[in-house]
């Protein structure tokens, strides 16, 4: 076990998977010569050559579109989008082709590609370096989505995504790229998609979160420790979702607050709340609350803290729910 930051864990994973499977290649803007603007792909060019760690032209749809063709030629491309909001040009390829091509061939061909990108705010950056775009991906049929919150999961979920026969989008919380350190198993390490993680056990209330909202939820749980025993569920695999884990925790605590950084309307928290409203209605001891980003453009950074879900906001929601009768 090594102590790695979250981005080092991503880098470790890529080294491991390229070593393990000669059909895996990494492509994207500035991933090769520079090793990625966050150094997530550092060292790959030297170790595996410029043909398996490719600096592409500056064209996100071209990256994902040619990755579809690379899959048809037997490759497993891992595409980096440099930032969340710069992945939007590839949405068309993702929705019209990446999510449909396997189905279009009657299951005869597989498209085991990965799209990975840093996502989320709080990093004091100019606009469009702060988005949480998971809804666009989760809503798209034929695509799987994972979001790690720890270095170990950053490696394990990305490894699972790379080995998965289906296309997977992996969003990495850039806020914690370097601030979060943790034990990461060396070599082979796979965290299967479809399994949530109980980050903290509790009895009275469940905070459901993923990605950069998990440490926040844990801090909120800590802050609430005297009032209530709070469980923190790290969804981590948004699609496929570990519905059992969600319903089990809701069944146990009967009180659920969902924390999401993305804007509220049609966000992932809405999907989780809808599942609870359909399948846990008799377990619920109060409303299902959502603490999310607001339905506004991500603000300029001097006021971004007011936009981002905060410990006080989560605590406030939890207290309202705990005192609900």
């Amino acid at each position: 076990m090594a102590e790695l930051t979250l981005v080092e864990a991503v880098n470790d994973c890529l080294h491991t998977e390229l070593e393990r499977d000669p059909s895996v290649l990494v492509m994207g803007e500035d991933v090769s010569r520079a090793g990625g603007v966050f150094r997530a792909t550092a060292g790959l060019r030297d170790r595996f050559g410029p043909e398996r760690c490719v600096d592409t032209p500056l064209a996100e749809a071209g990256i994902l579109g040619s990755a579809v063709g690379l899959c048809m030629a037997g490759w497993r491309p891992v595409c980096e989008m440099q930032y969340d909001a710069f992945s939007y040009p590839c949405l068309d390829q993702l929705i019209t082709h990446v999510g449909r091509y396997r189905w279009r061939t009657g299951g005869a061909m597989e498209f085991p590609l990965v799209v990975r990108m840093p996502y989320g705010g709080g990093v004091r950056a100019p606009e469009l370096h702060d988005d949480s775009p998971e809804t666009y991906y989760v809503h798209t049929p034929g695509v799987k989505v994972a979001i790690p919150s720890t270095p170990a999961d950053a490696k394990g979920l990305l490894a699972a995504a790379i080995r998965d026969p289906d296309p997977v989008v992996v969003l990495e919380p850039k806020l914690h790229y370097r601030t979060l350190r943790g034990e990461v198993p060396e070599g082979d390490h796979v965290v299967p998609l479809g399994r949530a993680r109980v980050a903290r056990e509790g009895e009275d209330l469940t905070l459901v979160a993923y990605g950069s909202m998990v440490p926040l939820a844990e801090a909120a749980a800590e802050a609430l420790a005297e009032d209530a025993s709070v469980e923190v569920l790290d969804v981590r695999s948004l699609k496929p979702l570990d519905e059992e884990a969600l319903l089990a925790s809701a069944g146990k605590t009967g009180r659920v607050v969902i924390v999401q950084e993305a804007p509220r309307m049609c966000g992932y928290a809405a999907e989780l709340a809808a599942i609870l409203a359909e399948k846990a209605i008799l377990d619920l001891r109060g409303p299902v609350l959502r603490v999310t980003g607001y339905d506004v453009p991500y603000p300029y950074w001097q006021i971004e803290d007011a936009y981002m879900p905060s410990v006080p906001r989560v605590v406030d929601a939890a207290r309202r729910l705990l005192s609900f009768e």
Partner: protein
Amino acid sequence: MAQVLPAECGLRRVLDEEREVDGLGERDLLELHRQMVLLRTYDERSVVYHRQGRIGTYAIFWNHEAMQVGAAFALAAEDWIFPSYRESAIGLLRGMPAATVLSWWRGHPAGWWNPLDYNVASICVPIATHVPHAVGLAWGKKLRGEPACALAFFGDGATSEGAFHEGANFAAVMRAPVVLLCNNNQWAISTPLEAQTAAKALADKAAGYGMPGVRVDGGDVLAVYEATREALERARAGEGPTFIEALTYRAAPHATADDPRAYIDLARVEEERQNECLGRFERYLGRLGVLSEEAAAAVRAEALETMRGGIAAAEAEPPADPELVFAHAYADPPASFRSDLAELRRILGG
């Protein structure tokens, strides 16, 4: 500024120049003819089948047979074809049953073929988005040291899309062994070429990508063949992609749902129909004394037979199983599919 070719000249031609393409024997010429007749028959019958309600909306490719056959004929078996809806039946040239393509237009699962069986990618419906796929395949084959090249068909309108641009640029940068064949039929549904681009020639786009741009008479099967063969030689020699502009004219509606009378010049259409590509090639073969009327009649009869068999087979397909709704989206589907399928069964059970 880069020099621009005038739109109507600088076209490579073979038929009208009474040239012969070296390396093409009599057998090849007759095979080219057979393939053109097969596609022509597929197209004409499909329009009838549509009117009879036996297939759905259909994108007509009448007078595009020369460029489709000419380009495909230059390929090796391991080379891939990336068709748009306009080349929906191109698989027939690779041994795909007519029933498969007819089923696609019938909206029946039997219409979704395995590209690996023919090295023919799925029909691309969204304009130009398959260009990067062809580029990626060619690039990927090259990376693996496999000889295969790719041929992508797309229209004049497609050159306006970002997907075409990004794909073409990737092709040149990666020196991908791909041929970008632009079917310039001078219309995008109702939008004429001059409303699509201000370029004198679409081939002028090639220089901007650092690849050769070639203009051929798209109604001249031998000219298209020759140009594609040269492009493939460059590709196999590691010199990268070529952009081929095959100039023709859409002498039929965009699709069965379209009524061009609202926007098109019918006199021009009539003129084009007089000069349609199959007749041109047959007259050329006639002049060479290669094709007898009997032989031509036999080829037509064979093609008609293929279509009769094809539509019969397509119509003999059992009704599609509604449960296929859940098939093939994922190699391993999410758990939620189980309950959804259960619901569907309950509903269908009545």
